[in-house]
């Protein structure tokens, strides 16, 4: 019996392998035929589709971000398809999970290429997105990410100002340095801070990126950074760092970390007797549940998305109708905007009457994306700078009475 089961099991595994080979080769043949079939579909007019790939980490660590992005993207694409698509062509979505893993992201991206997509929206996490950007840049595939904030996504070498730009890769979110600089300016102009301290997570690209930009900008603006404290991933005890910071008593503490840590840090800082203002980046979204209202009162952070304002009401209602839950974080609206930017570029390219999926079409999409000017999305009005990063203002969110309230655009 055991022998039989094990043989059967081995057979199943072998079969699954064969299945993989089969599907891949059929994908290959479909890719080979795609020019022919897409030509046929353009000929048939209304029945044509535009294939768009979506990469998101819908499982694994940080799946909460991936799912939000995917929901946002699908929300917009469904709206467009509901309105009749682009020039009568429906958008056909191929979405794959990359688990946030660069290796999987690269294979998934190549699968999308085999599927014959015209553009790719994704990926979500920075590491996976950069790996995909390398691949997409090589073949000139239009790509937009909703959430990868590292400068190295759109620029080959962020340290070199003359560096080559990945012309085909765009993003709908801020980059890390931008947030750090914004918050330093805000501290100087709005809060009148003279001294500042930072506490950041070492080994975290996002946290260090924001911190470095903040510290550099502070020097420029004449704010003295009295203390730079670090912690490592997984720490929950920040008493030592908070005691040091409290003893120096800076006007503001910049805390560019994720919401859970931010909550703990604020809580322990108040316990250590610190009374100044806390500032943070967009990782703060959702912090309200992790420290009490009194402790958080007056803290500010910048966000790509001003939740609860009039501008985003329609989006929030639509999201709730579609998924039965409130907008979980700013990644859903950023995903929505990424899809909007991409569809806008697709429709501009489609107007030129090029063949869907051809290289000319892709180049036209990239050109159209680059020349986006004044497109109004949920998180702001879009225009891209020379590095394909969006130029838009940040929303300053303030903690008032235990709620994250929109304060102003800065």
């Amino acid at each position, binding site marked *: 019996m*055991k022998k039989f*089961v*094990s043989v059967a*099991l*081995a057979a*199943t*595994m*072998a079969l*699954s*392998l064969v*299945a*993989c*080979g089969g*599907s*891949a*080769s059929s*994908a*290959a*043949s479909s*890719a*080979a035929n795609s020019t022919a079939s897409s030509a046929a579909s353009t000929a048939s007019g209304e029945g044509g589709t535009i294939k768009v790939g979506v990469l998101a980490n*819908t*499982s694994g660590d940080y799946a909460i971000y991936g799912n939000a992005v995917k929901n946002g993207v699908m929300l917009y694409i469904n709206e467009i398809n509901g309105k009749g698509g682009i020039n009568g062509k429906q958008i056909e979505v191929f979405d*794959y*999970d990359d688990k946030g*893993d*660069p*290796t*999987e992201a*690269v*294979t*998934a991206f*190549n*699968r999308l*290429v*085999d599927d014959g997509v015209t553009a790719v929206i994704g990926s979500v996490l920075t*590491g996976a997105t*950069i*790996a995909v950007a*390398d691949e997409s840049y090589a073949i000139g595939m239009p790509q937009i990410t909703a959430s990868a904030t*590292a400068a*190295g996504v759109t620029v*080959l*070498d962020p340290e070199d100002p003359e560096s080559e730009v990945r012309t085909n890769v765009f993003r709908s979110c801020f980059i890390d340095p931008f947030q750090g600089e914004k918050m330093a300016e805000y501290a100087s102009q709005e809060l009148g801070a003279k001294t500042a301290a930072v506490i950041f997570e*070492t*080994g*975290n*690209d996002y946290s*260090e*990126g924001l911190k470095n930009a903040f510290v550099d900008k502070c020097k420029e603006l004449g704010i003295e950074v009295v203390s730079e404290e670090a912690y490592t991933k997984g720490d929950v005890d920040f008493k030592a760092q908070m005691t040091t910071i409290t003893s120096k008593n800076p006007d503001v503490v910049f805390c560019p970390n994720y919401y859970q840590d931010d909550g703990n840090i604020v809580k322990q800082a108040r316990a250590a007797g610190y009374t100044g203002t806390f500032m943070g980046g967009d990782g703060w979204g959702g912090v309200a549940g992790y420290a009490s209202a009194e402790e958080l009162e007056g803290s500010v952070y910048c966000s790509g998305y001003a939740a609860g304002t009039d501008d985003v009401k329609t989006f929030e209602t639509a999201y709730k109708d579609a998924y039965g839950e409130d907008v979980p974080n700013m990644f859903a609206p950023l995903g929505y905007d990424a899809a909007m930017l991409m569809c806008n570029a697709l429709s501009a390219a489609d107007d030129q009457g090029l063949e869907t999926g051809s290289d000319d079409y892709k180049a036209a999409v990239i050109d159209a994306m680059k020349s986006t000017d004044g497109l109004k999305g949920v998180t702001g009005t879009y225009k891209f700078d020379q590095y394909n990063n969006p130029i838009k203002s940040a929303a300053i969110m303030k903690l008032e009475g235990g709620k994250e309230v929109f304060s102003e655009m800065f």
Partner: protein
Amino acid sequence: MKTNRKTIPMPMRYLINTVLIVLFILASTLFVNSDAVSGYFTKILMVIGINIILAVSLNIATGYLGQLPLGHAGFMAVGAYTGGIFLKAVDAAKATGGTYYLYVAAALVLSGIVAGIFGILIGVPALRLKGDYLAIITLGFGEIIRVVLTNIDSVLGFDLTYGASGLKRIPKITTFFNVLLCVVLSCVVIHMVMKSRHGRAILSIRENEIAAESCGIRTTYYKVMAFTMSAFFAGVAGCLYAGYLGSLQPSSFGFMKSIEILVMVVLGGMGSMLGSILSATVLTALPEALRAFSDYRMVVYSLVLVLMMIFKPTGLLGQYDFSLSRILEKLMNPKKSAGKKEGASHE
């Protein structure tokens, strides 16, 4: 041993195997370079190849030596970063012709050697311990490597690994052909070493360390040797990985990566090279093949592992290893049951 049993002479065996291997490499390269195979399929084959090298290399320490190291991803990371930094330093992307291939070969060998050195450094203290103690100490070393890669830049103040943001813009040197070549070479070398005197010494340590020692086998030496060899090939795989992806982040080489490789070895059968190759292939291809089932694919993956361990705890192939000569000799001696003979063939 029956005297009238027909056997294939040794030089003949080597000849057959060499011819078959060369044919295999040629055929698969031609197949992959033809239009029938898409970029996606080639990429998967490359990942499979890298995973095969990782699995067969871990199989040396786990299957043949009988230890349980949990830090294999650490050696892979060392190899990956060595290869990546080297390729960037010599600017391999701009090199042409012979120089390019020289750089690629040098990167692969260098990655292996540096990983091997780390293997010695870690092996000497770690291999004094056994079983779960060894597992924990290698786990610790694996984590140390990852943490060092993350923090070395900011602590020492230079730009080498670029810390958490990762090493980027590594020339993409990995092609299907050099993955295939590395897979074949690693398998052949490991196989030949294991069939040699040194290999039997390593096996004897697995079977009974005290008995082996009392027979005069230098157990520490052979343990460190096997461990170093294991690290060497993991380093080569790491270099291929770096050249495949073009960017590296320390977080990819965490504890889970080590476990992933260990699962491949255990599932294939500890001590079976063919088992490692098969399970590395299946476990890499399975999640891709099941993409259509989206979220359920991870369930299937886990289910395969659970069922396998319940019904065949020794792994897919146990300790069986494929031997072409053994099969041929069986065919040549039809009626008699073939005696247990160590075959020399392996692909």
